C-alpha cells in the first residue's frame, strides 16, 4: 500500500477498501455495477430513493500498523453522502469499532438515500475514520476524533449532461446577451466555493447556426477556442478574487475554486498558487500567453 499524501497525517490509499465495486439500483429496479468513480443515474426524479450496495474487506491489523495507530485508537468504517445542490451531508452507514485483533473485517454495505433530499448530483464517500484515541500520538498520526485515514469518493450524477461542462444553447437575439456574440459564460467570481456543475453555465448562441455546427464538434478549432476562453475566464476571475490564493488549498476539487487550482497546476506545474498569483499580477501578458500554451485554443 502506498500512503496517500492528501492528509496531514498517515493515511491509506483507496485500495484499502478492497476491490468490490459499488452497485446501484436503477429506476427499472435492476442492480447495476459501477465501474470507475463516476456514474449517471438516468431517469431519476425526487420520488426515487437511491439504493447503493457494496462489499468491503479490510485488513484491520495492517491498517493500524500502516497508520501507526495505538491499540486503543477506535476506527470505524463510515459511508456518508453530500449533495452540493441541496446542501445536505449525512451519514448513511456507520460500522461499530473495527477490532484491531481481527485480521480481516468484512462488511456488506447497503445504503438508501432519500430522493427528496437530492438534486442534480451527489458524492458518496467511503471512509475510515478515527473516532477516539487516548494515547498521545506522534505528529503525523491521526489523533483527533473525526480524522479520516482513508477515503474513496463516488460521484453520482442524477440529471443533466453527465460529465460534460454545463451548457445551454439559446438564441441571443431573444435574450439579454448581445446578439452578435457567440457564447457567454455565466458565473460569479465571488462564488469560488460553488460547484462547477451547479453554479457555472456556458450559453451558446443558437441564433448563429454556423457557430453551433462548428462548436458541436469537440475536435474542432472552434470548440477548442471556446474551451480555452472558458478556462481563461475562470482563471482570471478567480485570480481577481482576493480570497482565491488564501483559500486555494481548501477548495473541494469539484468546486469552481478547485477546478481553477487544477487548471493552474496544469499551466504551472509545481508552483504554488502564491507564486502563480505573483506572475499574474506582475506580467499579465506573459501569464495569458502561458495559459494559451498550456491550455491550447488554436491548433497550429
Amino acid at each position, binding site marked *: 500500500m502506498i500512503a496517500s499524501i*492528501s*492528509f*496531514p*497525517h498517515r*493515511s491509506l490509499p483507496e485500495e484499502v477498501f478492497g476491490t468490490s465495486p459499488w452497485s446501484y439500483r436503477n429506476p427499472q429496479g435492476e442492480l447495476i455495477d459501477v465501474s470507475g468513480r463516476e456514474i449517471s443515474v438516468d431517469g431519476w*426524479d*425526487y*420520488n426515487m430513493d437511491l439504493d447503493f450496495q457494496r462489499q468491503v474487506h479490510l485488513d484491520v491489523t495492517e491498517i493500524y500498523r500502516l497508520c501507526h495507530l495505538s491499540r486503543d485508537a477506535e476506527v*470505524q468504517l*463510515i459511508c*456518508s453522502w*453530500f*449533495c*452540493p*445542490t*441541496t*446542501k*445536505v*451531508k*449525512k*451519514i448513511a452507514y*456507520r460500522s461499530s469499532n473495527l477490532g484491531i485483533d481481527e485480521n480481516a473485517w468484512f462488511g456488506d454495505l447497503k445504503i438508501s438515500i432519500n*430522493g*427528496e*433530499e*437530492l*438534486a*442534480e448530483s451527489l458524492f458518496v464517500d467511503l*471512509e475510515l*475514520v478515527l*473516532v477516539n484515541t487516548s494515547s498521545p500520538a506522534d505528529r503525523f498520526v491521526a489523533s*483527533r*476524533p*473525526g*480524522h*479520516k485515514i482513508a477515503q474513496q469518493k463516488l460521484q453520482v450524477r442524477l440529471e443533466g449532461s453527465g460529465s460534460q461542462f454545463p451548457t*445551454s444553447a*439559446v438564441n441571443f437575439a*431573444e*435574450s*439579454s*446577451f448581445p446578439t452578435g456574440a457567440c457564447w457567454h459564460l*455565466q458565473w*460569479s467570481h465571488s*462564488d469560488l*466555493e*460553488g*460547484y462547477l456543475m451547479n*453554479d457555472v*453555465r456556458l*450559453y451558446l448562441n443558437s441564433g448563429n447556426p454556423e457557430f453551433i455546427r462548428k462548436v458541436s464538434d469537440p475536435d474542432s478549432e472552434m470548440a477548442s477556442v471556446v474551451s480555452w476562453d472558458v478556462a481563461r475566464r475562470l482563471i482570471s476571475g478567480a485570480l481577481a478574487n482576493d480570497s482565491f490564493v*488564501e*483559500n486555494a*488549498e*481548501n477548495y*473541494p476539487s469539484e*468546486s469552481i475554486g478547485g477546478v481553477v487550482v487544477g487548471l493552474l497546476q496544469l499551466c504551472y506545474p509545481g508552483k504554488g498558487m502564491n507564486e502563480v498569483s505573483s506572475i499574474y499580477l506582475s506580467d499579465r501578458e506573459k501569464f495569458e500567453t502561458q495559459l494559451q500554451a498550456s491550455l491550447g485554443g488554436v491548433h497550429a
Partner: protein
Amino acid sequence: MPRLYPRLDPMSANQLAEEHKGKTIEELSEFSSCEHSDAFVAPVGGTPVPQRELIELVGKVRTKLLELGYPQESERSSRKQFDYEIGKLLFEEMDITLGEAARNDVWSFLGCVMIPDAVAWRFQDRHPARFKGGIRNTFQRLWWRARVLYEESNDDNYYLTKLPEDALVQIMERPNMMADWKLSRCIAHQVSELNFDQDKTTIRPEDIWRDASKRIRQRSPFTNFLLLDETELDLFVKGCFEKSIEILCS
C-alpha cells in the same frame, strides 16, 4: 408527493432581472404576478402548488412588508428585520422539499415574477443577482438560512438568522461546510457568543469569524465532522475561534 413551485428559466430570469433594475417600486408592484408566459413546472413526479396558494404567499409577504414600512424607502433596521421575518415566513409557509428549494429557477420565479418589488425595496442597488435564483437571491438565501440555522430547542427557533450579515455569508456561502447543518449551527452559536469589549480590543468581529471559518474549512478535507457529537463539535469550533482571537490579538 413533492410540491412543485413554478420555475423561471435562467435566460428569462436574466432578462427580467436586467429590466427590473430600471423600474420603480410601484412599477414592479404592478408587474408582480403569480403567472408568467415563460414559467414552467419541473417535469418530475410531484404536485404543482395551486395558484391560490401562491397568491396567499404573496399576500403574507406583502403584509409583513407593510408592517416594515413598505413602500417607503427601507432603512437599515427594517431591512435587517425583513431578512428575519421573511426568512421565517417563507420557511414556515412554503412547504417545499430540499430538492425544489435547491433549484435556482424556483427562486427566480419568486424574485423576478411574484414579488420583484420586495426585492427592490430590500436591495436598493437592485443587483440582478438579487432577483434571479442563486446564492444571492433575496428569498433563496433567507429560506436556506432559516432551514439550516433553525433550532427547535430555543425560545425563538430562528434567532441564529439574526446574526450579522457578514457572519451569515461566511456560514451559508460555503456549500461544503454549510451542508453539515450541525456544524453550521455550531459556528453560528460561537458567533452569537462573541463578546466584544471595544475598550480592550481593536479586532473587528468579522475578522474573527472569517479567520475561524477558514480554520474550520482547512480541516474539512481530512476530518469527518458528522461523526462528532455536539460537545466535541462545540469544543472544536470554540478552539478555532479562540485560536483566531489569539492570533489576531498578537
